[in-house]
């Protein structure tokens, strides 16, 4: 075993850090440090800056315009970005559909779509979930009827993050007859500007807007926008989801959140000292830091291939990652005290009236984020689904 970063990797970390220091716009970092969802304009500006440097798609091989980084380099890059409050680039193009296209797509698809994902010109959204199929993805009802070489798609998608500003959707639709639920599903690329696409915002618990319902009415998808083979969509979807075994550990973001929580606790005064000096609070913070550091090594183990069963370990990462994320935010809320109660509108994105007179620096956005992140145990497979996956693997031993 070798635990240390190589000199090259250490130099790489310095390079990333220097780049972020110089090129990450201060206003974007400041907005992102708040808990609100980043506005599209910030995502584009930052993506353009990254693209200039050739770093806009950390996970992509050189062949398709990526930097060809190792897993450890990607880890370092994401870690530094999170610590510098860089917004997380929209994952739908870069992390999800991009790899599907360069792995299974046609040359035409590669040429048409990949460059604009890299440059930030095209934003994507993911049309997987449906009202009747949350964790049970295979039961989806959206249908694509064959019409000549095209597909005429009808259905309804839900929880579609960023659909309200996406240009394209990658979408699962049932196009073939099949016995098994998982078969007969195709992976289609749909233009959001098609008149049959209707996006309805979903008002969420945080009073923000990120997710939507998308109604697909008689949308004609040309045959050239079918990815790979018809009826194999389930395979591509699984490839796409398996591609990101460590993302749902939230480790980089949680490290950043931990620092912010400590700042809040240091600043909040209680009973003749800071909240951080309260021994009961401090002990809880210490305990979660221990877990957070272990989580980071759990991610590194996964990247090193040092896990006997990657799918069980990926589920463990999500379970532990979501619980650590929650505990850190819980501590932040506890440190904030009654100041979590007001609704603080995102003044960067709307009118700032009706803000309370007195607002601690870190308060706006914190509770909105807290509420939104409750979904951490739900999306990308509920905690129950993850435990089921783990048990299945355990029972095979």
């Amino acid at each position, binding site marked *: 075993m070798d635990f240390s970063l190589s000199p090259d990797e250490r130099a790489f970390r310095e390079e990333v850090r220097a780049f972020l220091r110089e090129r990450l716009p201060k206003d974007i970092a400041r907005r992102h440090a708040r808990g609100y969802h980043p506005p599209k304009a910030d995502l584009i500006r930052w993506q353009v800056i990254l693209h200039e440097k050739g770093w806009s798609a950390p996970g992509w091989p050189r062949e398709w315009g990526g930097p060809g980084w190792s897993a450890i380099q990607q880890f370092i890059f994401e870690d530094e970005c999170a610590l510098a409050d860089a917004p997380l680039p929209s994952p739908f193009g870069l992390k999800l559909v991009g790899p599907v296209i360069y792995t299974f797509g046609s040359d035409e698809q590669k040429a048409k779509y990949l460059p604009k994902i890299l440059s930030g010109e095209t934003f994507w959204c993911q049309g997987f*979930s449906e009202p*009747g*199929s*949350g*964790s*049970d993805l295979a*039961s989806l009802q959206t249908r694509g009827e064959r019409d000549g070489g095209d597909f005429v798609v009808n259905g309804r998608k*839900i*929880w579609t993050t960023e659909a309200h500003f996406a240009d394209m959707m990658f979408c699962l639709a049932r196009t073939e007859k099949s016995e098994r639920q998982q078969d007969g599903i195709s992976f289609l690329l749909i233009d959001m500007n098609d008149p049959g696409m209707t996006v309805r915002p*979903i*008002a*969420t*618990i945080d*009073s923000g807007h990120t*997710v939507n319902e998308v109604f697909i009415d008689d949308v004609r998808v040309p045959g050239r926008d079918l990815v790979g083979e018809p009826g194999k969509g389930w395979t591509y979807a699984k490839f796409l989801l398996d591609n990101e075994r460590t993302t749902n550990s939230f480790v980089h973001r949680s490290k950043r959140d931990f620092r912010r929580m400590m700042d809040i606790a240091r600043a*909040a*005064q*209680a*009973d003749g000292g800071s909240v951080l000096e*309260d021994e*009961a*609070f401090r002990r809880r913070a210490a305990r979660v830091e221990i877990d957070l550091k272990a989580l980071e090594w759990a991610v590194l183990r996964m990247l090193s291939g040092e896990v006997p069963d990657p799918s069980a370990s990926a589920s463990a990462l999500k379970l532990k990652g979501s619980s650590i994320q929650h505990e850190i935010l819980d501590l932040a*809320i*506890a440190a904030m*005290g*009654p*100041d*979590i*109660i*007001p*609704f603080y509108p995102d003044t960067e994105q709307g009118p700032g009236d*009706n*803000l*309370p*007179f*007195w607002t*601690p620096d870190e308060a706006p956005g914190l*509770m909105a984020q*807290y*509420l*939104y992140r*409750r*979904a951490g*145990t*739900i*999306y990308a497979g*509920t*905690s*129950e689904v993850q*435990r089921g996956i783990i048990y299945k693997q355990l029972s095979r031993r």
Partner: protein
Amino acid sequence: MDLRPNEQQSMLRDSARRFLGEAYDFDARRKDIVGNPSPGLWKVVTDLGWPGAALPEDAGGLGGSVVEYAILMEEMGRSLYVGPFLSTAICAAALRSAEGPRASELVAQIASNGAKVALAHGEPGGRGFFDRPTAVARGDGDGYRISGRKRLVHDLAAADFALVTAAIADGVGLFLVTPDISGLARRDYRAIDNGQASDLELDGTPAELIVAGDAAQRALDDGFYWLSIGLGAEAVGIAEGALSHTSDYVGVRRQFGRMLSDFQVIQHRLADMFVEIEQLKSSLLGAMSTHGGGPLERMRAALGLKVLAGQVAAKVCGDGLHLHGGMGMTDEMPISHFYRRARVLEAQYGNSDYFLAAYARLLD
């Protein structure tokens, strides 16, 4: 000892549940809170005599006790009531404790005229109810003038008057202030649970002294006791409401070819929610039992109840939110409102850490 409600208490519960279930169902509530909240609902609440339910008959109240108050708060929790009922009850308790003709007169206004009262006690950077006020009151002729800042004054926008705490020569004083008086800057805003709150900047604001010194401290302690019973009972209603909505939802939602309620892990989680609620109900009874007891015993029970109320409501509603899956995260599902109310309740007047630390100081 007999812990069963008597006939009148059962009737009060039934009628409150019926009224709120009909006139204040989830859709009616959504409309009402846009009005932030509407005066219409308060009129009905007053006509039903609820603000005076636990106030003495000679003040125009119905002569009930802490039990009637808790019954109403519990039903309001179940219906996610938004409005000045709790704030007014806390102030009524403080005023009853204060005694004297002026305080009695104000109690009577609450009991029979439907007066709404806000408590302006917390301050910026404050942690909770037991923090000493830094706002200062200075004598000025017959009256006083208060200068200082008050934070998170719940229900001030709707209030007819406010009770303001401030430091005076012999400790703390409780003062009457009219919210729209001059010498007072005020910012109204909404809370994440759609309740209303305000920040106040007082700058030589004229104020009338109601009670001062040890008697004021006792009035605040009484206010805290009623605050804790009120939030404790509301938390019971909230948690039961959340459990009931969640049971209903998992009984209709299908995943993997089965009802969610067919999964054993979901059944057991519902059972755990029930266990927590049982515990909270029992703590509420225990705290009510100290109503006529010694101040230390009463304080301990009230602190314990506030801790449990916040934690149980947040836990049960959080479980309910999770069991609703993605749907629970939407504004259109009641569970997301139950959860938000629970989070606010947990932090209101001080969070669980704050009150648990206070409880721990009394541990022996």
